[in-house]
């Protein structure tokens, strides 16, 4: 209807094309007959070459030629000279096919196959590659082939590095060349090749090199991506490190079975336990595997190290995790006993990239058990926690002596021997910071700001151990705020960054952390021992982090933020009360980390967005009753509760059936109707209170 008249092809073109098609069809019929009858005569092999010249994608013909080559090479009269000439023929056929289509998978693959037979000269291959890579410098087949040739013909990485340099000087926007440079440098550094013994020498030179590209044109993408790689190389610690633990080194942990107010110990390290055990948590700087009773020894009077089972705290079923936990059993009689934990004395803890844990660490703490006398009278005992403002008293206003100094100063563990932070890294970073400040003084550049923010955070965390202070967090927060305004389409990205920096700042020192601690002044339920609440409410957080500094937290208020996920919260093994009121959580699956919190008793998830968005489970393989990830946990007998089909609430079921909650608030969410509440009560027999109502 709206079409324009089409140009009719000229009759003579049509005729020529038809003739060509006719010829191809004839060739093909002949070829298949040779192929199926395993005929490898000179004439037959030549015919396949003709076919490939017209259509290099004809993979059947490539395979036929492989069979033909094998056939001829296996003949008794085949000597090295004739073998070479057979293989050279193949290379010629590939070359002319590639001229027809240098993106042909089949042709490149055939060439690899021929080269792997030996007999060919690397110079020829490099010449061919030069020709193709000049014509199309981004052809990934050619780059893959180049890496293959260099590796199989033992061309030095240094020579290849020089080649990427030449390519970059010809066209610094050629990201393929930058990429290959990163691959080559990784290999050279790993091999500790001559001239590449340390990153200390190599990386600063690379920074110089990339500055040329970035400063020539800050809008070009290639340079920034390479810069990102360099930054990663500069800051990433290869071997995993233990960065914090609970109990903290040097702390006194008091374990009680009921709470009393006259304790001589700090409320920060008093823990209720009626199960006769308490958790020991190890927090590493990256996910590790292999934490077990043979790689971690725990020495105490009351536990045998080899009986301990270490579990990875990760929501996916992976065997690698940043956080590991075990539970120590303790006797019911009075006890004052030191515990020593040594990590990594024998090999076996490795990062997911295969690096060994190489710094053995020791930390120790004391455990005090004081069984309560049966007749000791309690003050008023409450049934529930009320997250009301008037129930919290800022901790900073308390008298000096009640501030627990020990447990905070020892939050981070001393590793022995302590890994030294290399000066060159700090130096390289400060040079980069200077450089990008200069760039930003000349022009407004989003990616420049983002890079500066990343550099500053990397600098701070690297120099942290010396100064114990975040020097630039205010500047970084400002950069992220700027970026949110400058680039609203990636607002959420920057907001996440902002949230994490803010939390780093909050947890950077005892003083700042104490500002966010409050004392819960109302009477507490028996099972909640520490009245200290960390209140990170109203900070417009979109993400939570800095968990390594928060392992001691038992009561946490994250209400009135903008959280959509609580990823990582599973690290807080002591958590017994949690408020997530007034956030942006969209479904129960977002609460997945809670499944790992066995001591959680009080939870407030009211006024979130749960139930507003439909979740598609039927057509998609996700963690649902239909996928094998959770299949084993889903008991088919449990599909109906009362008259309600559980399948409608499978996501809630999977979370709540693993929790031992006593108090839950869920009002103000789309899903929280009476029917759903009745299901919750059945799923959680332990529940005493739901939305402020006592359950019978």
């Amino acid at each position: 209807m709206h079409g324009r008249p089409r140009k009719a092809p000229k009759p003579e073109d049509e005729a020529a094309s038809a003739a060509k098609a006719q010829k191809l069809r004839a060739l093909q019929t002949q070829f298949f007959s040779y192929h199926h009858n395993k005929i490898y005569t000179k004439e037959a092999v030549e015919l396949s070459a003709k076919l490939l010249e017209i259509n290099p994608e004809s993979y059947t013909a490539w395979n036929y030629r492989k069979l033909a080559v094998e056939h001829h090479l296996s003949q008794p009269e085949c000597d090295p000279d004739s073998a070479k000439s057979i293989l050279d023929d193949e290379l010629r056929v590939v070359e002319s096919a590639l001229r027809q289509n240098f993106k042909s998978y089949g042709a490149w693959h055939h060439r690899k196959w021929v080269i792997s037979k030996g007999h060919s000269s690397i110079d020829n291959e490099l010449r061919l590659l030069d020709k193709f890579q000049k014509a199309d410098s981004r052809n990934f087949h050619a780059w893959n082939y180049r890496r293959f040739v260099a590796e199989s013909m033992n061309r030095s990485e240094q020579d290849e590095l020089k080649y990427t340099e030449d390519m970059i000087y010809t066209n610094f926007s050629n990201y393929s060349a930058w990429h290959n440079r990163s691959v080559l440098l990784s290999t050279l550094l790993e091999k500790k090749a001559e001239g590449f013994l340390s990153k200390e020498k190599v990386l600063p030179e690379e920074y110089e090199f990339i500055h040329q590209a970035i400063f020539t044109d800050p809008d070009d993408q290639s340079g920034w991506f390479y810069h990102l790689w360099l930054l990663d190389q500069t800051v990433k610690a290869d071997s995993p490190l233990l960065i914090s633990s609970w109990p903290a080194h040097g702390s006194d942990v008091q374990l009680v079975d009921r709470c009393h107010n006259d304790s001589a110990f700090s409320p920060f390290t008093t823990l209720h336990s009626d199960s006769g055990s308490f958790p020991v948590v190890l927090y590493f700087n990256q996910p590790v595997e292999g934490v077990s009773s043979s790689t971690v020894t725990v020495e105490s009077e009351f536990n045998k190290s080899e009986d301990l089972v270490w579990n990875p705290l990760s929501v996916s079923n992976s065997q690698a995790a940043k956080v590991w936990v075990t539970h120590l059993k303790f006797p019911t009689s009075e006890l004052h006993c030191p515990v020593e934990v040594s990590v990594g004395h024998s090999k076996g803890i490795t990062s997911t990239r295969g690096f060994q844990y190489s710094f053995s660490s020791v930390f120790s703490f004391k455990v005090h058990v004081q069984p309560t006398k049966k007749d000791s009278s309690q003050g008023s005992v409450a049934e529930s926690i009320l997250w009301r403002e008037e129930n919290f008293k800022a901790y900073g206003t308390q008298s000096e002596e009640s501030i627990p100094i020990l447990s905070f100063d020892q939050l981070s563990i001393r590793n022995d021997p302590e890994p030294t932070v290399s000066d060159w890294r700090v130096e390289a970073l400060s040079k980069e910071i200077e450089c990008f400040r200069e760039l930003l003084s000349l022009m407004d550049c989003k990616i420049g700001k983002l890079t500066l923010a990343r550099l500053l955070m990397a600098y701070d965390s690297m120099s942290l151990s010396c100064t114990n202070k975040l020097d630039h967090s205010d500047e970084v927060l400002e950069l992220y705020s700027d970026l949110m305004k400058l680039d609203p389409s990636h607002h959420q990205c920057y907001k996440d960054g902002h949230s994490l920096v803010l939390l780093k700042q909050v947890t950077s020192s005892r003083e700042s952390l104490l500002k966010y601690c409050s004392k819960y002044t109302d009477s507490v339920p028996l099972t909640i021992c520490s009245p200290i609440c960390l209140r990170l409410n109203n900070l417009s957080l979109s993400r939570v982090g800095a968990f390594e500094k928060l392992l001691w937290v038992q009561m946490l208020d994250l209400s009135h933020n903008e959280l959509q996920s609580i990823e990582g919260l599973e690290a807080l093994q002591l958590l017994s009360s949690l408020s997530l009121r007034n956030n942006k959580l969209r479904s129960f699956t977002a609460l997945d980390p809670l499944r790992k919190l066995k001591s959680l008793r009080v939870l407030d998830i009211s006024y979130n967005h749960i139930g507003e968005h439909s979740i598609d489970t039927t057509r998609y393989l996700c963690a649902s009753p239909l996928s094998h990830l959770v299949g084993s946990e889903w008991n088919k007998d449990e599909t109906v509760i009362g008259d309600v089909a559980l399948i409608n609430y499978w996501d809630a079921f999977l979370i709540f059936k693993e929790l031992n909650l006593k108090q839950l608030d869920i009002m103000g969410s789309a899903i929280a109707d009476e029917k759903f509440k009745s299901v919750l009560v059945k799923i959680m027999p332990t529940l005493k209170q739901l939305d402020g109502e006592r359950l019978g």
Partner: protein
Amino acid sequence: MESFLSLTVTQRDQILVEQQVFNMYKAFYDMPPSSQSFMLELQRENHLEYLTKGLRQLGPSFCVLDANRPWMCYWILHSIALMDEFVDPELEDNTIDFLSRCQDPNGGYGGGPGQMPHLATTYAAVNSLVTLGGDKAFSSINREKQYMFLLRMKDPSGGFRMHEAGEIDVRACYTAISVASLLNILDDDLVQNVGNYILSCQTYEGGIAGEPGSEAHGGYTFCGLATMILINEVDRLDLSSLIDWVVFRQGVEGGFQGRTNKLVDGCYSFWQGGVFALLKRLHSTKGEQPIPLGDGEDSGAESSQSTASLDAAGEKGLDEDLSQGGSHSEQGDQDDASCRVNIDNIDHSSGTRHAKVEPLFNSLALQQYILLCSQELNGGLRDKPSKSRDHYHTCYCLSGLSVCQRSWSEDEDSPPLPRSVLGPYSNLLEPIHPLYNLVLDRYQEAHEFFTRSKDPVL
């Protein structure tokens, strides 16, 4: 010392493409509204004619595609299905017969009759048959032999080979796993170590490369991500860096590039756009949504339009212009009213409300690129204005368009709001299942059929 040229060849080419595209946009915005709405219209009839002709008979210039004939079937049939059209029964029969002749007696489909079986053409053939639908098409697939073929292509490393003695790459993994999943023959033997192979291909950029050591690439990123989802190991990927990478592949033209610093190409509307469709589903099921959602909680499509602006600086005009774009904006206004009614009638517990999801990419800008730059008015779609149409680009531009139109909807069953469809609402295409790139109801029919089928391995 050597120094960098201030304008590289890459940059020059990029500038040329930008100029060409912006000239088209400028011409478009200078047009009277009636011509604008014509320009934004999907030329269904012409596309259909171009496609049907391709299925009946191809010109001799298609010789080079001779080893890819099932692909031709899939590109054409899928494009037709996206427009909710059908081929006539005779052609359907012929296609099924033709594909049966491509099926190897020992399993798998070759690029044509007599050719050896190949994973990519197997994927294309199976997807074609699913798209055709019906018991005849479904039961023409020898599932038992298919399974044996897939197993033969499995490399001890975990990856798959494209064909006997062929190359191992991410494409091969995706096509094998996708086919196995569709035909309900996916088992632990096929899955074993595939995840490790895909993981070894994720680069520091965040995207996924075709093979270890190579650079991140749009097509492979789709294939790798879809594979990981299908085998239920998607958590092993570094998803946040993958998202970082893919959001930066949308350029000032509105379309996507395939790799860092490459030119825009219409086919990545699906390969990159499909990654967003996968991520969206992933996050809606995991309850996270990593990026956007401005600040206004009640941001309807209107504010989404203004927050989802183009990534690159200096292109402010575009989204403003878009929201004023002729007929589109009129329909948007009408919709506003119906939308309000809808919100007033929310039944919270049943979740029938129009779900609000913010796409992680600029969906309207991509639709604009597809309709104005990739579409040939007399049928067929293309890479970019300087290129000519072909069936491959027609298929993947249309697939990308379908993904865009539903980028705000969380539920494929309810039609999207008119304002999320650029141009007249009649542009709306059928929803796809992003894991397989099949039209959703065709997938469902096949899914039911193969779920009923007996386990062939027993």
